Structure formats: structure tokens, C-alpha cells
């Protein structure tokens, strides 16, 4: 099972993530680029999702053609779903659903936050929404492979 962790050191919070059984080749490529750091953002129209708008894949070029990857909408995805948007070359976006979503467009599902950590994920989501709309605090997220 492919596993990784998302840490938000400033918030003192972390969640464990594991493959969702879809697009494992894409997840593997992403994980070959870990450890990674980026600025944690929030979705602004589609629902309750945290969003990473720029994940830089500098070690391993992402070269899986879009038509070879399974897609699903975030509206239909379970809470905790981790999906990629436009993974290609050196970069990808990532969305993580922590509550209801209306976004019915296609994304590339790769992983889930484990059930035991969904409350923590929701906590991160709420703090990030507060940052996006009020405090503007810059929150960094780290992605680390788990054995």
C-alpha cells in the first residue's frame, strides 16, 4: 500500500494518507517527488476542499497521458479524497475534500486521508478557510512518504 503524510508544522497538525486504489501509477510518480513543500491554499468556488495550486515535481517528470488516468468529480468523491488537477511535467495541483463539494468537473483521484484522521483534515480545512478569508497567514504543507 502506498502511504504518505501531510504535515502542517505551523498548525501542529498532520494526516496520514494512502492510495485510494485508483491511478496508482500517478500516485507513485507524485511520491517519487517527495518530500515536497508548498503553500497550503483553499478552494474558492467548488466547496470545502483545501487546494495546493502548485506542487513542483522537480525530481521525476510526470509523463502519464491524461487519457490513461481515471477521473471523478469532487462532488461524487468521498470526504478525504485526494485528487490531482492537470498533473503534467514539473507540476500539478492537488485538491483534498474535507466536506461537501459542488464541483462536478473531472479530477484525477489518487489517495484518501485515512478515516481516523478525517477530523484533523476538517480542522485544517477550517483553519485554512480562516487564513484565506481573514488572517492571510501563510501556511506551509509538507508531503512525506511513509514506510
Amino acid at each position: 500500500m502506498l502511504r504518505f503524510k501531510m504535515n502542517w508544522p505551523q498548525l501542529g497538525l498532520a494526516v496520514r494518507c494512502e492510495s485510494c486504489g485508483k491511478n496508482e501509477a500517478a500516485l507513485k510518480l507524485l511520491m517519487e517527488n517527495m518530500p515536497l513543500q508548498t503553500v497550503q491554499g483553499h478552494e474558492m468556488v467548488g466547496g470545502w476542499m483545501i487546494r495546493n495550486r502548485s506542487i513542483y515535481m522537480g525530481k521525476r517528470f510526470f509523463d502519464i497521458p491524461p487519457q490513461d488516468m481515471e477521473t471523478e468529480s469532487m462532488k461524487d468523491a468521498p470526504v478525504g479524497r485526494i485528487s490531482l488537477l492537470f498533473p503534467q511535467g514539473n507540476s500539478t495541483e492537488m485538491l483534498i475534500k474535507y466536506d461537501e463539494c459542488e464541483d462536478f468537473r473531472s479530477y484525477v483521484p489518487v489517495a484518501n486521508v485515512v478515516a481516523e484522521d478525517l477530523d484533523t483534515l476538517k480542522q485544517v480545512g477550517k483553519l485554512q478557510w480562516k487564513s484565506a478569508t481573514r488572517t492571510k497567514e501563510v501556511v506551509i504543507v509538507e508531503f512525506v512518504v511513509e514506510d
Partner: protein
Amino acid sequence: MKTFQQLKAEIEEQVAASTVKPDQDVLDVFKYSISKGGAGYPQDNQIFTTWFYGAPDCGYVTDWCYFLVELARDESYSMEELCKMARFWFVQPSHFGEYCGLYKQYYFTKEIDKILDTLTREEFVQLLSAFRAYIANVNVWVFQYMPWGVGYAFMRKDGKYFEEALSLCN
């Protein structure tokens, strides 16, 4: 004129510099409301319109690079056609981004434009991918500093809202 390797390395250096630390252009425009190029000055010296128009144009550049790289996978598109599309698609929005104060990204666009016709297909993919990664970082910081809280002043309205409003007019 820079070589492909020099330009790619320069862009990648900027990607690394702006991943967890703010991009200077975005800081100036979106955090400190400075518009060095003069955008917004004729509009009663406000910055809001500069944010509103400058930010999405940069966002488009990210997506155009994505689609250009996808098209480059299809050998039925010649390099000449890909270069022509690249110039049509991202030079104009990138130039507008410069007018709004996002200088570095347009500097890279101009440098890419200079060597575009000399690139192999693989170099085209590598260079646009690196550029897309930098513009994606610009977008990260734009989203970070955009004052999204003002959205609470413009709440969605529905039929019920307008029915109530009409009832007040009776």
C-alpha cells in the same frame, strides 16, 4: 540570447525561490498594492481592477502551457505549428500581466519567445513545463494575498430573497 539549458535553469531557480517564499512581483501588487507600471492609475488610483484583470491573465498562461505540452505529445502537430500556437496563446496575457506589475513572468515569456524556434519537441515540453511551474507559483501567491474576505459583502441571492424584496415594495 540564452540557450535552452540556461533559460530552463534560470526559470527553475525562480521556481525554487518562490515555492514557500513569496514571489516579489506578487508581494508588490497583491500585498502592498503597488502598481509600478501604472495599471489602475487612471481609474482613480485604485488597485482592485488591476488585481481583477491581472491575476486571471496569469492564470490562463498556466493552463495554456499545460495544453501546449499536451499538444506537443501529438506528433501530427509540427514544431512550427506548436510555436505559432504558443505565441498566439500566452504572449498576450503574459504581456498584460506585466502591465499589471507581474514583471518576472513576462521577462521569461520574452526569453522563451527568443529561442522558441530553435527548440526540439522535447526541449519545448521541458521549457514550457518549467515555465508553467513558475506561473503556478505566481498563482499560489496571488491566491494567498487576494483579500477573499471582501466576498462576504457580495453574498449570493436567490428567488426567495427577491420575493421578500418585492414584498417590501408593496
